[in-house]
């Protein structure tokens, strides 16, 4: 379980997170919805300890990761798979090495690594791309390699940062299907940061709306049409859902 308790974060002159509290139960997929620049990615980076809050706690499986030493933090991070907004693939590595890197560094033998890399790539329908470089991939393929890399270590939690941003609607929908398939097939706990309400409705169990550094509503997705908050109404309207 991931518990975020009253975290505050200031970047420069702006207080990006202003007392965020959120609980993500095991097996759930929670979408954090919000407009650009509202602090969604900052919040996601706090969950994996890439950023430290000015105050507040982030508790992962009972451990407050804001207070642990680096070695323990690395142990906790092995519970996570993180899919970056721009994939963050290593340009000089092939797809195989990009996906294999966490396993190589963890000291697995080459047969195990190869087997797990191929399995992870097959889960995202990218068999046969092992020898390609990131520059040879389309945007959607890069996202899927990013997902395969996040999956290869068999993490307990999956974090997605804007998984459909910058993709055309068809490819974006395929990525959503992929995430949904992984959710149903692997039963992992996931947090998805997105500004795409349709995507959030498709892949998540719960939706948290983040506005100006505050979570203004946190509901099951079925309850979304009952939310009266003007920001949510705007999202529904802009998505053609009201």
């Amino acid at each position, binding site marked *: 379980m991931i518990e975020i308790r009253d975290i505050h974060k200031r970047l420069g002159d702006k207080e990006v997170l202003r007392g965020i509290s959120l609980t993500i139960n095991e097996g759930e997929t929670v979408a954090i919805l919000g407009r650009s620049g509202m602090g969604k990615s900052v919040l996601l980076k706090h969950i994996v300890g890439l950023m430290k809050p000015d105050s507040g706690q982030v508790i992962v499986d009972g451990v407050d990761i804001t207070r642990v030493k680096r070695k323990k933090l690395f142990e906790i991070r092995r519970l996570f798979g993180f899919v970056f907004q721009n994939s*963050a693939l290593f*340009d000089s590595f092939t797809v195989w090495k990009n996906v294999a890197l966490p396993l190589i560094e963890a000291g697995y033998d080459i047969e195990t690594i190869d087997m797990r890399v191929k399995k992870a790539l097959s889960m995202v329908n990218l068999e046969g791309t092992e020898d390609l470089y990131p520059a040879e991939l389309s945007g959607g393929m890069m996202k899927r390699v990013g997902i395969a*890399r996040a999956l290869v270590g068999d993490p307990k939690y999956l974090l997605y940062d804007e998984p459909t941003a910058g993709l055309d609607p068809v490819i974006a929908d395929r990525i959503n299907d992929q995430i949904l398939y992984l959710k149903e097939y692997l039963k992992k706990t996931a947090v998805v940061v997105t500004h795409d309400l349709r995507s959030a409705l498709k892949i998540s169990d719960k939706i948290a709306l983040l506005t100006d550094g505050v979570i203004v509503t946190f509901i099951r997705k079925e309850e979304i049409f009952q939310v009266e908050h003007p920001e949510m109404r705007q999202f529904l309207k802009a998505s053609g859902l009201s």
Partner: protein
Amino acid sequence: MLDALINFVSEVLELLGGVSDLTVKSIRSLRDIKKIPGPLLEQMNNFGVNSVPIVLFTSVFTGMVTAVQIAYQIRDYAPLDLLGAGVAKMVMMELGPVLTALVIAGRMGAGIAAELGTMRVTEQIDALECMAIDPIRYLVLPRILSGIIMVPILTVFAITVAITGAAFVSNVVVDLDYTTFFQGIKLYFVPKDLYGGLIKSIFFGLIVSLMGSYYGYYAKGGATGVGKATTQAVVSSSLLILLMDYVLGVFLFGK
């Protein structure tokens, strides 16, 4: 005026603090040295093997022009037999280490800053963190170690090439035969000249790789930030090489 001074002092202190912090973290990451050989060999290849052509070009011409100019200066009041010794001392103590380091600062210092800077702004360094891979150990330490190892090796190569180029020019232009040229080197050779130059090159290798790593690792602000980091890495490395050259020169050869 006061504001500018305060800004300058705070920037210098920030730089010193940041570089010291990176150095301490790199030393700490030596604990995982078992995992370093792969990335280290890759960086030694980048740093060393791929820099051979430019070092070759620079040092051969340095050696040749040094021979011509020393011959011009000593012609009227010293025997030309001293030419080999003069060139060798000049190249071993000063020109070999400094010019190699400056060339490497332009090539690899900039390369390290640009590569790490791009990795920073495209979240590749964050991705390493998320995979529980220490980016300092994986990215910075191999670059620093390869700088410390490869710059002295390249300096030895540069010294050898420069002296060979000087011998050739001495023979062709100054009309001094090879035997006399190399006998002059042998006669006046002092080991301290060579190892003094190599000690300098170890420090220069550290400066180039550390400054490139520092500016790249902490780059921010997209492509503009990467460009700025690259420029700062080359400028600061070059200035520090010249400063360190003086300090080490006094320390090694001052008495």
